[in-house]
């Protein structure tokens, strides 16, 4: 028993890294699975773009609840799949899953600000200075 642990310690010293080889192979397996999932979901994204969700009753009904109509349904669904893929890359490839709070903290700010940035267009629909916005429609 003591011999075995001595071997492990020796390996860790030798390689400057604590992880044993067995877990490395597990990592590789996980990366390949994530890669395969990304391939599959890319194919799904392409396939979904050929479906007119605004012609399917269930989707019309469901998205109507959140005020999304017409082609925007396709956009929302496409973005959901893309976000899922991005989460896969972030969590496993970029190791965010096991990252410390020192990494997470600045990222939370980024997330907050980038979301705010994406929502800026909402201001385009309000008219803070009455009469300053002219719509064609």
């Amino acid at each position: 028993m003591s011999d075995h642990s001595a071997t492990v310690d020796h390996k860790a010293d030798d390689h400057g890294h604590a992880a044993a080889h067995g877990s490395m192979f597990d990592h590789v397996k996980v990366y390949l699975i994530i890669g395969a999932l990304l391939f599959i979901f890319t194919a799904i994204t392409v396939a979904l773009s050929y479906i007119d969700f605004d012609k399917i009753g269930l989707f019309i009904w469901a998205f109507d609840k959140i005020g999304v109509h017409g082609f925007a349904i396709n956009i929302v669904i496409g973005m959901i799949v893309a976000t899922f893929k991005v989460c896969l890359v972030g969590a496993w490839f970029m190791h965010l899953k096991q990252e410390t709070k020192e990494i997470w903290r600045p990222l939370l700010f980024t997330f907050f600000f980038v979301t705010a940035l994406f929502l800026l267009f909402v201001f385009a629909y309000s008219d803070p200075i009455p009469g300053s916005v002219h719509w064609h429609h």
Partner: protein
Amino acid sequence: MEIPYTVRPRPDTGLANPKLGIWLFLASEVMLFGGLFAGYIFMRLGSDPWMWPKGWLNVPVGTFNTFVLIASSVTVILAWESLKMRNLKMYKIWLFITFMCGLLFLGIKLSFEWPAKFGHFGAYIQKEVAHKYEPALGNEDRVEDGKVFDGHLKRKGYPRLFIGGHLTEKKDDPYALDASSVPFVPEANLDAVLALGKDEKDPAKKAKLLHTREVTLKGIVVRPADIAELNKEPLDPAKKKEILQRMNTIHFHKLDEANGRPYDPANDRPKFELRPQFVDSHLVLDKRDLIAGHGPLVPKLNTYLATYFMITGLHGAHVLAGCICFIYFWLPIKGGAKLFHTNPEQLCNRIEVSGLFWHLVDLIWIFVFPIFYLL
């Protein structure tokens, strides 16, 4: 000077410096692309439905490029794992594949995708002849309320666009062209034609006069009967429209280069010309059936392509930067693969950091691909 904490974690942050540095850099990158995506959202929502094209980009090629980039994301992480396992041979193999994937991605972009868009023209079809192309038209984007008739000319049975073109009809004015979508206003050109022979009452002389003004009206044939018709008081608007239409569709392309058609591909992009487009195996788009000519869809004329070139261009620059980093770390030089023999953990961190950057590039493409190619 030695940069501290490249391998060991810094006591106060608990992280090696490069790791924290790259994450802060990635955060700024997210904001950079976030700004561009926000601009995209704004322009997309603000544009009229028929102004935002769908299907201009080649989906199979885009999908292939997405696969290439995802594959490179997997290989870069395998390169990093190989380094962790102290396997230099596998590290070099995986990193080289990553580098080649990056080059392949850029190659497809630069040799195929962008040039295809540089030579892309919009065509506007006359309403009366639309029926000729009807069998080949997939008008799924047609607005049915009669206000705007919008269709993409595409190969029958193909879900994707073949050439970019819009059939634009407004209910109150069947030939009104949206000035924002058409690079010139035909009416103004007609007025210029009329102004030339303004004081000449004899239609025959007037036609001759116009004919001799080669500089301004190069090769244009204005029929005397038309001139007479146009000089009638009061001028019949329907007649004027009809003549205008005929002049534009048949002779407009012969107007003065500089003033008549500032955006003519022949003037704007001399390398290109409009060739008859096969929209179906039996059908050829006749030049004379175009409502007001055609314009190259360069960024200055097209918001969509301006956004597309901006975002994919910046993304492409990132891919190039990644490739440069990878080949540097691959080559047997002091800062590259040779580092493996002196400080393998530092090389490992270098690959981790450049790998994180590469994953961000992949991550951005995951959004770029659907928004430009599919939606």
